[in-house]
């Protein structure tokens, strides 16, 4: 809201510099977004002059040679002038030699195209008074010749653009902010004089207007209408226009301007009807009929719904209540009798209407935040005063007041002890009381409490709808006391013996692991385009993860995986010519399972082919690199990836390459891991060069943080181990893990209780020459050890033979000799 300092001065005397006022407004709790200064600066040697003659310059088509009378300031001067907008007899500002105009422009006696010029006639812009208005500033009202120009020009103004918080609709007005400033500087507040020229005693009754009918009292708790007859519509006085312009409003005519002026003064919106345009002479506050139409003052036709509150006459809606008037009933030059509406509309009703029509106004803005019903009549009377003052006329009957004054009796009891307890530092009780009183919070009673405390019963004025509880008064006291005076202190740290959330711990561990393995952590957006999910995940997921109200099309769905974002990152870097190989991310993803969505904590990484060349080649990463890192990530969540079978990714999954990727999941999907090669077609579709390996691990957050059982030490043998190798010929589709399982089983059975099989591990996979088609060889290394003695070759060989026999008997595998 724009606040004019000149205007504020009407209510409170402030001689502080602008910086000090800005600071005050800021620390009262209203952010000052901008301060602008208008009006002419102090000007020396610029006086009022009158053009006596105007002749064409002999040597220039566009210049004139004038004689100008500046009266006692120097008599008649000859001045060359290039402007065109003036005539002989006009009074204009004249800058005499020696004057310094804004921009350090010094006026000198000079010759212009051979013609002497003894000064300069000035435009508004040249005097530093804003924009060029097409020529000289013509001074109205025949000011005395030779008068210093600052005495004639309107004084400058300072305009504060202030952000008013939603709890303080009372400050959407000059009086409201003046009240705050009067409290801050402890200066008296002077309310506008109420003359109420509209005394109705003995006044005639209008023939054009006969009253108001409120059909929707819940949406309109108070409606008042004053009738003023015999008004003459015309421009409002200069001082009022100037005020309105200063705060960014365009003057229209005296009636409309008074309405705006009083709104900006009191915060109470008003509306003036031309009485003769009210069909049937009666105003009806009702809901619109579904589909009813009105053309609002902004020249747009609006279609109303049955929830829109309107002010109507017997035929048609005239005003969208609290929002904007209609073109059909406004005041114009022919208006002689006006009906002045000053009403209270329910905030939610106005908000709904404003939203549904996409139409906001100074009026709706105030109603949405709350207008004080107790100020309404005062504001109406003030407006009537100003209308009679500026447009003439007299108040006639009937005065319509429908709806009651909303009852207001609010007292808050607060003690000085409570205030100090909440503040944490001492403030003298008299200073607390003074702060409250400065804000017009009246102390109804004061009682001593306890040792040194005071209890106040505070009466809250009706415009402070935001004050309800003792704590609210603590804020008021602190505001006026000054938040800059809060004393410094040390932090009192008392541990709460709680732990960091398990999810935070998991993320920290997993990302630290990956960063320690040369991954760059990335942060990508949660919202993804729906098409991507339809194409690469599933239609079900796309349906379940959709937002009801996306803002932009390509951010319409929750992400079901972090990999998509990481691929975006790869692409971005690729397109910028930045080599990117290893990326990771930790964040929330959303998965659909059995008709429900689940929010999962996910950690993912990608490994792209390293496009940069190195002086020494390294073994490239492969599926088993990914498996290794993902197992570590899962372990950070307390999950053993080997604990569940790895299955090829099938069904709803996200773009993985068949045969080169797998998924592992808990039986109830409470954690899911997928890893391997990203689908190559998808990479191509996205324009990513080369192949990309990826791994993702996702767990429902509620599963994290289950404390693992304390580990117990297992003793180990200090005797030497015995090593044997065993090679098997198996089908090429056989999985090493399963074969290894069979070998381990056979080994354990063969060794029996004699000694232990410490480990069985694949160390070679071979396919090709020397083996039949469709077969491969898997070689295992077996480690035997006894807890109590050194094993002999014979006994170990014996067991190896037994193992081979057992494998040949119980499996389809052949021993490779």
């Amino acid at each position, binding site marked *: 809201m724009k606040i004019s300092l000149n205007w504020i001065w009407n209510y409170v005397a402030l001689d502080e510099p602008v910086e000090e006022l800005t600071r005050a407004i800021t*620390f009262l709790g209203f952010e000052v977004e901008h301060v602008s200064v208008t009006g002419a600066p102090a000007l020396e040697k610029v006086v009022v002059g009158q053009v006596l003659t105007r002749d064409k310059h002999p040597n220039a088509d566009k210049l004139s040679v004038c004689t100008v009378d500046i009266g006692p300031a120097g008599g008649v001067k000859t001045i060359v002038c290039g402007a065109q907008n003036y005539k002989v007899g006009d009074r204009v500002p004249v800058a005499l030699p020696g004057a310094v105009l804004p921009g350090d422009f010094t006026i000198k006696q000079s010759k212009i195209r051979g013609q002497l010029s003894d000064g300069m006639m000035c435009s508004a812009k040249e005097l530093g008074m804003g924009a060029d208005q097409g020529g000289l500033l013509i001074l109205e009202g025949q000011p005395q010749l030779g008068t210093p120009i600052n005495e004639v020009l309107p004084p400058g103004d300072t305009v504060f653009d202030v952000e008013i918080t939603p709890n303080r609709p009372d400050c959407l007005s000059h009086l409201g902010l003046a009240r705050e400033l009067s409290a801050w500087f402890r200066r008296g507040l002077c309310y506008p004089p109420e003359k109420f020229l509209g005394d109705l005693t003995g006044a005639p009754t209008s023939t054009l207007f006969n009253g108001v009918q409120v059909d929707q009292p819940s949406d309109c708790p108070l409606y008042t209408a004053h009738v003023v007859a015999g008004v003459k519509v015309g421009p409002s006085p200069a001082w009022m226009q100037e005020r309105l312009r200063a705060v960014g409003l365009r003057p229209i005519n005296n009636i409309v301007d008074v309405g705006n002026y009083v709104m900006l003064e009191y915060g109470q919106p008003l509306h003036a009807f031309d009485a003769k345009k009210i069909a049937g002479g009666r105003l009806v506050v009702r809901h619109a009929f579904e589909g009813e139409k009105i053309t609002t003052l902004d020249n747009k036709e609006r279609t109303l719904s049955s929830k829109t509150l309107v002010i109507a006459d017997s035929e048609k809606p005239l005003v969208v209540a609290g929002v904007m008037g209609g073109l059909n009933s406004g005041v114009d030059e022919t208006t002689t009798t006006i009906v002045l509406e000053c009403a209270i509309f329910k905030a939610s009703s106005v908000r709904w209407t404003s939203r549904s029509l996409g139409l906001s106004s100074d009026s709706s803005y105030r109603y949405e935040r709350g207008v004080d019903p107790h100020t309404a009549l005062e504001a109406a009377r003030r407006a009537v005063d100003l209308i009679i003052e500026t447009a003439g006329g007299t108040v006639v009957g009937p005065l319509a007041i429908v709806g009651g004054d909303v009852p207001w009796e609010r007292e808050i009891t607060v003690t000085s002890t409570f205030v100090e307890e*909440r503040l944490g530092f001492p403030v003298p009780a008299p200073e607390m009381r003074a702060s409250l009183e400065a804000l017009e919070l009246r102390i109804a009673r004061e009682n001593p409490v306890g040792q040194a405390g005071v209890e106040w019963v505070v009466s809250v004025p009706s415009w402070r709808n935001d004050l309800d509880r003792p*704590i609210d008064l603590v804020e008021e006291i602190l505001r006026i006391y000054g938040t800059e005076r809060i004393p*410094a*202190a040390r*932090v009192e740290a*008392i541990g709460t013996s709680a732990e960091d959330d398990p999810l935070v711990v998991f993320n920290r561990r997993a990302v630290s692991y990956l960063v320690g393995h040369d991954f*760059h952590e990335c942060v990508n957006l949660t919202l993804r385009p729906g098409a991507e999910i339809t194409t690469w995940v599933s239609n079900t997921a796309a349906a379940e993860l959709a937002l009801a109200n996306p803002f932009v099309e390509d951010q319409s769905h929750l992400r079901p995986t972090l990999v998509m974002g990481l691929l975006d990152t790869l692409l971005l*870097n690729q397109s910028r010519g930045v080599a990117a190989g290893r*990326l990771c991310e930790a964040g929330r993803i959303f998965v659909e399972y059995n008709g429900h969505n689940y929010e999962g904590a996910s950690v993912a990484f990608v490994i792209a082919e390293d496009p940069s060349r190195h002086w020494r080649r390294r073994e490239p990463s492969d599926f088993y690199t990914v498996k290794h890192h993902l197992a570590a990530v899962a372990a950070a969540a307390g999950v053993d990836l080997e604990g569940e079978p790895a299955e090829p990714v099938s069904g709803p999954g996200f773009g993985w390459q068949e045969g080169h990727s797998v998924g592992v999941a808990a039986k109830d999907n409470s954690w899911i891991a997928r890893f391997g090669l990203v689908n190559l077609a998808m990479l191509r579709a996205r324009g990513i060069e080369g192949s990309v390996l990826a791994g993702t691990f996702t767990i429902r957050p509620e599963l994290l943080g289950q404390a693992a059982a304390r580990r117990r030490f297992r003793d180990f043998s200090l005797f030497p181990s015995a090593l044997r190798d065993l090679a098997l010929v198996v089908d090429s589709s056989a999985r090493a893990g399963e074969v290894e399982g069979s070998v381990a089983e056979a080994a354990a059975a063969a060794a029996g209780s004699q000694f232990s099989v410490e480990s069985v591990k694949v160390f070679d996979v071979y396919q090709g020459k020397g083996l039949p088609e469709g077969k491969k060889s898997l070689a295992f290394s077996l480690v035997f050890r006894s807890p109590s003695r050194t094993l002999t070759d014979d006994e170990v060989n014996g067991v190896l033979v037994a193992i081979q026999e057992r494998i040949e008997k119980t499996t389809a595998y052949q021993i490779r000799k």
Partner: protein
Amino acid sequence: MEMQEQLSSLLSKASAELQPIRTRPELESLKARYVGPNGEFTALMKQMGSVAKELRPAMGKLINESKAKLQALLDERLRFVEEAELAAKLGPAIDPTLPSPDPGPGTFHPLTLVREEVCRVLRKVGFVVADGPEVETEFYCFDALNTPPEHPARDPQDTFYFPPAARFGNVSRHTPGERYLLRTHTSSVQVRTMLKGQPPIRIVSPGRVYRRDTSDASHSANFHQVECLYVDKNVTVRDLKALLDYLFEALMGPGTKTRFRPHYFGYTEPSFEVDLSAKHLPKVNKEWIEIGGCGIVDPEVFKSVGYDPEVWSGYAFGMGIERLAMTLYGIDDIRVFYQNDLRLLRQFTGSI
């Protein structure tokens, strides 16, 4: 004495033959030629049988001495061969200025670094890190935080909602049929934490939040916040100011100042905006920069989580992690955080 000469000449010959030997196989074959079963030295030893009995002790001694000498020669050459082999294996001396062909080092995202730093600073004064879902319900995001039903923050113009049919299996609703939404602040974590336990509570909740807003240099559809909540007996405005003075001095160094400007938030009373003066940081060209919001927890919030506001009091503070990171690092476009250009990421090789 023939034997003696033979031994002596054999040693000289062996010594000479050993000189050019460079590899283990050469050495092995030479060794075989002398001391193998058919070796020359072996053959000489076999002649011992034909030596006269009285000469045998002297001859035996001589042979043993020669054998030791020959062995010494062989050993010496073996060491030489071994060294040569090692040198061949090691290759030429390394050039320490060549770059490592391995990738790395990895980096934490700058937002992670800032988040963890804030958490670390706060952990020192007793805060623990709390977390909660990003999909929330109206109760946790608005109702419990004393946000009036008509508040614009709830408007679908400003907040992302899910269709009424959406079900989230692991995001609990406070009342059946509540609408799901994407949380607009991490204050919902405060509500969930308070509902789970009793005071005292001292948590810091970092996390991702969502606003339905145009993306530009200073706005993003999702961004990150970090909030603190302290609930105990007799928590004061002064305590709150002390915490923020401590936090920002720890983050930005000595000489950092904060100031409170009264403001309005539904969930705190009194409420303040927090300004920061840290002119020693690059790109901070204003005396005061707005960094966050805070206040004393509104009694209504306590009521909605079942705490007695007569007994408990508390403070809350929140700020944007991006904004803090931009201030700390001198970044002026929020979008760089989500683009993950490696030229940005590589600048932040820190640890958490």
